[in-house]
């Protein structure tokens, strides 16, 4: 169905359908964010010997996040007197928009995707890089020293880790010969890339966590050091946008890992009767769980060590992986 729509002529009807689908996806994503936050709090709680939210919405706290969001919406919107007003207002939007834009290229199943562009992977990485601007803008516009430091940390971190992130997937691109995410999934019929490219997977996972600003790479908002980092002056709805961007990115990044390393919607052998969407959801959940699990366990890395690690360890490893892949591809010629 998607293929047909994408191939069809541009028309108002088509636009309408896509617009509608985008809105649906937005709500799906918002729904995901709602329950991802809840899941995170629940898992963290359980690992920390407590129950997590259990008051609002039954004993599982199903409506906790909804209540939180409502609270954020009706909260007083404060803008510091000495803040750079236009930028301060603009920053959350700049941060959030790319997060939603990148979802367009993710193929959730072989039938359900929004765009099938040849350079899908490149698109994802290019667009996601824009969020940094939003964060730096927010940090700068707040006219707060902690925010500024958080913003600078974010810029440094995200730029440094984008490079190993891209480098690590080059091996996969070499193997598949395509940047199209659908093609990458199709190429994993013989085995997921986590098996063929384990080094790339590890580098990608680490770089992805860093890109997401999650523990142990949560320096931009390092609570114990910078209080709240770049969003220290934000409150209410604007703050919610930063939060939303963060979790939408988590959604996107988990999807991307699923797609390029875990074989997307492809089933495990002999379990083909289970639909692709379920497989995708399962793999996706595992990735999310791992991200949360990291958050529960690890302390935060230090800023200078983070940069050192990115440039001196991850990047050379990723480069080595490219060479190794190239050599293997030439010698074994498996693909």
């Amino acid at each position, binding site marked *: 169905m998607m293929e047909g729509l994408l191939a069809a002529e541009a028309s108002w009807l088509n636009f309408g359908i896509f617009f509608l689908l985008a809105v649906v996806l937005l709500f799906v994503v918002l729904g995901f964010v709602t329950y991802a936050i809840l899941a995170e709090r629940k898992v963290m709680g*359980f690992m920390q*010997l407590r129950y997590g939210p259990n008051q609002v919405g039954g004993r599982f706290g199903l409506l906790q996040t909804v209540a939180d969001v409502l609270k954020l919406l009706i909260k007083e919107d404060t803008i510091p007197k000495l803040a750079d007003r236009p930028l301060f207002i603009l920053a959350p939007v700049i941060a959030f928009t790319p997060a939603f834009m990148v979802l367009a290229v993710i193929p959730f199943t072989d039938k359900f995707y929004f765009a099938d562009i040849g350079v899908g992977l490149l698109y994802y990485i290019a667009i996601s890089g824009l969020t940094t601007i939003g964060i730096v803008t927010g940090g700068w516009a707040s006219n707060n020293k902690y925010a500024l430091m958080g913003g600078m940390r974010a810029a440094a971190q995200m730029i440094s880790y984008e490079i190993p992130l891209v480098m690590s997937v080059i091996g996969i691109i070499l193997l598949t010969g395509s940047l199209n995410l659908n093609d990458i999934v199709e190429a994993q019929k013989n085995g997921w890339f986590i098996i063929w490219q384990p080094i790339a997977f590890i580098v990608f996972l680490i770089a992805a966590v860093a890109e997401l600003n999650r523990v142990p790479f949560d320096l931009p908002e390092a609570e114990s050091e910078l209080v709240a980092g770049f969003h220290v002056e934000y409150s209410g709805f604007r703050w919610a946008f930063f939060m939303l961007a963060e979790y939408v990115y988590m959604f996107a990044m988990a999807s991307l890992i699923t797609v390029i390393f875990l074989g997307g919607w492809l089933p495990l052998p002999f379990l083909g009767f289970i639909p692709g969407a379920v497989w995708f959801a399962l793999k996706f959940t595992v990735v999310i769980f791992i991200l949360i*699990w*990291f958050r529960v*366990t*690890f302390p935060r890395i230090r800023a200078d060590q983070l940069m050192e690690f990115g440039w001196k360890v991850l990047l050379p490893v990723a480069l080595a992986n490219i060479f190794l892949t190239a050599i293997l591809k030439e010698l074994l010629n498996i693909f």
Partner: protein
Amino acid sequence: MLGLAKGLTYTLKNLTRKKLTYDYPHEPLPLPDRFRGIQKFYPEKCIVCNQCANICPTDCIQLTGKKHPDPNKRGKIIETYDINFEICILCDLCTEVCPTEAVIMTNNFELAEYSRDELFKDLVWLDENDENLRKVNKA
């Protein structure tokens, strides 16, 4: 890397362990008998010896006595007895010195009020505060 993996196994193991939190406002906290909570006062036991007011480190107890109404009986009886819970630190010294156990501790500790004035508890309030009384008051 090994250290990280060890840490991950530790947290994963705890995922299924018994949870330790209290369901506090819904279930009362289990407190030992000796717990020092808001005082309960027995006006009939008080002999107006003033020892509690004297020992109080923050001077939060104020009391007055009057002559015994029965002319055949000597001594005094209590007239007013106030504890100011804005400054009371629940140190237990008043119950420690009280010769007749007229003031004892309870296990109640919820003192939140909307106004500071309400923290000023008088004889009647302290007399009515008669739940969860401490059983053993002297060492």
